[in-house]
């Protein structure tokens, strides 16, 4: 669907509507969707809260209730589940730490327990499994390295081996897949670039080649897709853009065209942003659309850090003053 010249009510980012949409979603605890998404709610909360923070509405949410719920989701093994009833997993451990970082409450957890959970998931070849059941995916390397960075315990895992494993997932097009041999995908590219950045190993990728592949994700609608010949989707406004940003090539896409695509995907009546203009909005795409706009410097939004996927203000507070900034 082409983006019309006149975006009408969608011509600007409707921040108040989106804040209301997210708040309403958080408070809708009796519909089917609430139950069906319980196993990954931790990530949903992270997406919603970070979006609220970027649009300046974090105080609309109940901090105490959320922090308490996050802490209840930590299990004996030190990891966090998607919710208190669900088993630990690296994905939700990261989301939990990111939420606590937003609220400057990382000091409330037992750092050693979390670190030992994360480090325990590293394999001899440097990869990470998501949990005790052994699924390996480069996403989990990013999760693990970022958990360590958030808790300032980078030395707890073998980041050299971790970076080598990521490098072994490089493909002919400069991109990265979930495991060695798997096809390049923008989501995996983000996590691999993020992981290499955290491991101070960006020299292990072909910067120009990868960024060219990434800028080729932009379709005639202005939106970005995940890989060649696929349809554009607002969430790639984050996966592709953050990688381009880390690698200093954001100017290789048309930011103007992408901005218009994201704005066109807003729901001007109910609030929220969707993957495509004709689809229903959800918190996931609302966050990634806003995050993409933030990376492009859209006025009125807090700046987001492309490696940590948290507001820059939050990241600055994490690191000791003497350390160098990670993102360009």
């Amino acid at each position, binding site marked *: 669907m082409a983006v019309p010249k006149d975006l009408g009510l969608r011509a600007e980012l409707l921040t108040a509507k989106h804040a209301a949409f997210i708040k309403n979603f958080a408070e809708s605890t*009796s*519909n*089917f969707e609430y*139950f*069906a998404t*319980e196993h990954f709610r931790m990530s949903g909360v992270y997406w919603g809260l970070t979006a609220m923070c970027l649009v300046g509405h974090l105080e609309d949410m109940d901090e105490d209730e959320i922090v308490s719920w996050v802490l209840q989701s930590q299990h004996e093994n030190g990891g966090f589940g998607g919710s208190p*009833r*669900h088993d630990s997993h690296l994905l939700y451990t990261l989301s939990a730490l990111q939420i606590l970082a937003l609220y400057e409450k990382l000091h409330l957890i037992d750092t050693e327990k979390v670190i030992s959970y994360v480090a325990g998931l590293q394999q001899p070849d440097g990869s990470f499994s998501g949990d005790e*059941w*052994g*699924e390996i*995916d480069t996403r989990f390397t990013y999760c693990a390295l970022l958990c360590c960075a958030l808790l300032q315990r980078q030395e707890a895992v073998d980041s050299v081996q971790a970076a*080598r494993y990521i*490098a*072994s997932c*490089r*493909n*002919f*097009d*400069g991109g990265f*897949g*979930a*495991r060695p*041999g*798997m*096809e*390049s*995908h923008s989501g995996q590219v983000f996590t691999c670039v993020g992981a290499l950045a955290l491991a101070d190993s960006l020299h*292990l990728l*072909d910067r*120009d*080649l990868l*960024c*060219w*592949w990434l*800028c*080729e994700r*932009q379709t005639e609608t*202005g939106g970005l897709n995940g*890989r*060649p*010949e*696929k349809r554009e989707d607002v969430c790639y406004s984050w996966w592709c853009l953050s990688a381009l940003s880390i690698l200093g*090539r954001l*100017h*290789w*896409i*048309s930011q103007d*065209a992408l901005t218009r695509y994201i704005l066109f995907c807003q*729901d001007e009546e*109910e609030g929220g942003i*969707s*993957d495509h*203009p*004709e*689809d*229903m*909005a*959800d918190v996931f*795409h609302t966050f990634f659309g806003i995050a993409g706009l933030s990376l492009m410097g859209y006025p009125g939004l807090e700046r987001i850090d492309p490696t940590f996927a948290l507001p820059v203000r939050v990241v600055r507070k994490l690191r000791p003053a003497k350390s160098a900034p990670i993102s360009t």
Partner: protein
Amino acid sequence: MHGRPRYPRPNTSDPQKAQAAEQRVQLYSRLTTTVLKRLQAGQYDKEILELAARLLEQNPERALEKHPKSYATWHHRRWLVSRHVTSLQQEVDLVNRLLEADERNFHGWASKIDRNFSNYSAWHLKTRLLKKVHQQSPTVTLDELLKQSPAAQQRQMPLWALREEFGLVKQAFYTDPGDQSPWLYHRWLLGCLLAHVKAGSDTKAVAEILEQEMQMCKDILELEYTAGPEAELSSSIKWPTLTLAQLKDLLLTISQPGDSPDIAHTSALYQRLQDIDPLRTGFYQDASQGSAKILVQSAG
């Protein structure tokens, strides 16, 4: 949300629908609570398996057919195969069915070896297979590759194999020059050719291939331009134009003093590309100044 249309807006006022929705919520909530409680108590019996199956909408195979891109479901299937709960043949049959439904499902490709090369996933798989087939030093370590050590340099595709691949991909171009996948594969082939240059191989043979590819691009462009003005801004013009610019850059790299390769007008090509493909103006501007090096021997 994927596959959920914004319009028409869901009707929340119909009492019958509201009641049905409420019942569904109650059932799901009861099932989840029961299953999770029993798991936590360590009760792994037949009944809980049946309850979990209901939760997963009957059986794992159905789950995949409804959600063919679920990472967790695919991982679970691999676990089942590793424990001989399902046979490898059954697995291959399932993957074939899913790939017939969606050729681009990379979970399926990761599970499968096949010979139907007709899309990007397939070209990607080809690059992996060709490396394996033509690897001359199977004992090269990742360390050696990363350090670009002499041992790693041996991992080149022989020129005869490259010529075959250029021939194959040319057929794809003439079938549909706007299809980007073979052009991206072509860039990789050029990168493999670059490896021969760096290794000091027969420069004349490499130059011959480059001239041949340049001629092919020019021929395709001529065909496309005669197709009419609509073609001017299409991807079937962009890809041969970009490839022509890359080929000229590569020829420049290997040209000797005294040669006069047709390397003029590269900047004119990049300017043309900005007109054809304005979204990527930033890239083309950097490329024309030599600060966008995409012709590399990608260490994939």
